């Protein structure tokens, strides 16, 4: 198997200030498929081309932000191994029983010094993309409902201890560092990490407050669809932060915008194929403006100041 260990981001659980408004937004504007609600009040969604049961959960709370970010691993054996490795590293882990999250197996949960809850799991029900597994059509009606990303792609999380997050993701979980932003004194300000051929599966920003969400990101096939997303955002009065433009960092063609509760999300296309043997690409802090917005070469004030 080409990709082993951690396979991909599996789910993000996001807090919204009004659940019904949040459901309408994630279903009808972002265009995720509605997968229902559980007895705890968490509402489940998947992107149309994802095969596992869900990738986004929202729940109502009095504070916006992110509860947890989960990754799927290749097997129960790998899950057990990572649990032991994390404990050996000195991280406290917790087992969440199978079924606590709908159609999801046991999860191994831990908290970074950054304050973020990360979890690993090996099993989530395959529900497919409605096309079956023989001679599927290339897309479905759901691929045109709202912005309709093909997958939840990654998240950018912010907190004080970037170095521990880097150490755990690289040295325990087997990720590699694709790109980084580095201050003149050598301190890393931002890191983009991959467990696959994607340019990022998770990223971190150094920030004065812990446990902060910068954004959860959704992948689109083409730049045209990014522009279509921009139209849909404006038609629905979605507050846009940056874009449409292109990032220098990762080369993604992007829009940053906010959900109805102030959680930033990204819709993007492109990037490039990365490999674990590639050297890390470095952006000295003075080049962050074009790293963020290559077209405008502008360090948007909100990028390092607005979090949920």
């Amino acid at each position, binding site marked *: 198997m080409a990709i082993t260990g951690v396979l991909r981001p599996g789910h993000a659980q996001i807090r919204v*200030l009004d659940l019904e408004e949040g459901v309408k937004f994630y279903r009808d504007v972002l265009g995720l498929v509605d997968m229902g609600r559980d007895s705890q009040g968490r509402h489940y969604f998947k992107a149309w081309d994802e095969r596992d049961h869900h990738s986004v959960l929202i729940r109502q709370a*009095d*504070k*916006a*932000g992110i509860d947890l970010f989960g990754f799927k691993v290749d097997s129960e054996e790998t899950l057990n191994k990572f649990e032991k490795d994390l404990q050996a590293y000195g991280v406290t882990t917790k087992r969440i029983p199978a079924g606590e999250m709908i159609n999801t197996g046991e999860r191994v949960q831990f908290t970074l010094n950054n304050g973020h809850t990360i979890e690993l799991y090996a099993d989530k029900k395959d529900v497919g993309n409605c096309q079956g597994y023989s001679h599927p059509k290339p897309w479905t009606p759901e691929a045109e409902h*709202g912005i309709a990303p093909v997958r939840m792609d990654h998240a950018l999380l912010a907190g004080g201890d970037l170095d521990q997050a880097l150490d755990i993701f690289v040295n325990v979980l087997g990720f590699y560092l694709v790109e980084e932003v580095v201050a003149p004194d050598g301190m890393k300000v931002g890191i983009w990490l991959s467990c696959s051929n994607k340019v990022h599966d998770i990223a971190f920003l150094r920030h004065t407050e812990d446990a902060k969400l910068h954004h959860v990101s959704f992948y689109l096939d083409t730049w045209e669809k990014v522009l279509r997303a921009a139209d849909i955002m404006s038609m629905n009065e979605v507050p846009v932060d940056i874009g449409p433009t292109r990032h220098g960092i990762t080369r993604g063609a992007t829009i940053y915008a906010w959900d*109805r509760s102030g959680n930033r999300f990204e819709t993007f296309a492109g990037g490039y194929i990365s490999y674990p043997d590639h050297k890390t690409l470095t952006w000295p802090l003075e080049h962050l403006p074009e790293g963020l917005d290559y077209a405008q070469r502008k360090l948007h*004030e909100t990028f390092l100041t607005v979090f949920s």
Partner: protein
Amino acid sequence: METLKGNITSVMTEEAYEYVKITIAETGESFDCSTNESVLEGMRRLGKRGIPVGCRSGGCSVCKCQVVKGEYHQHRPMSTEYISKQELEENCVLTCCIKPKDNLEVKVIGKMHKNICEK
């Protein structure tokens, strides 16, 4: 699509609204704002500055202000991460979540305060 008749048509069909004046206490600058839109959106739409603009949805804190004069009402939830009950009682609000009822004077206390006001 969530709605194509959201705020735009509702502005035309809902009860009458009027324009009031919002004044930034620190600079004395002011702008006209409809009683049917948030204080922050009123400022932003006119290309004015003074209150930092962030998520515009009640989840961050950069548009935080204290209303020192005038009446307003809250039309959206604000994240309690940034606005406590006591702050609300002291008229500290996220300006993306309040609509003015009459002329307002606001003091900017949001995070980008230094960047905006100390130039």
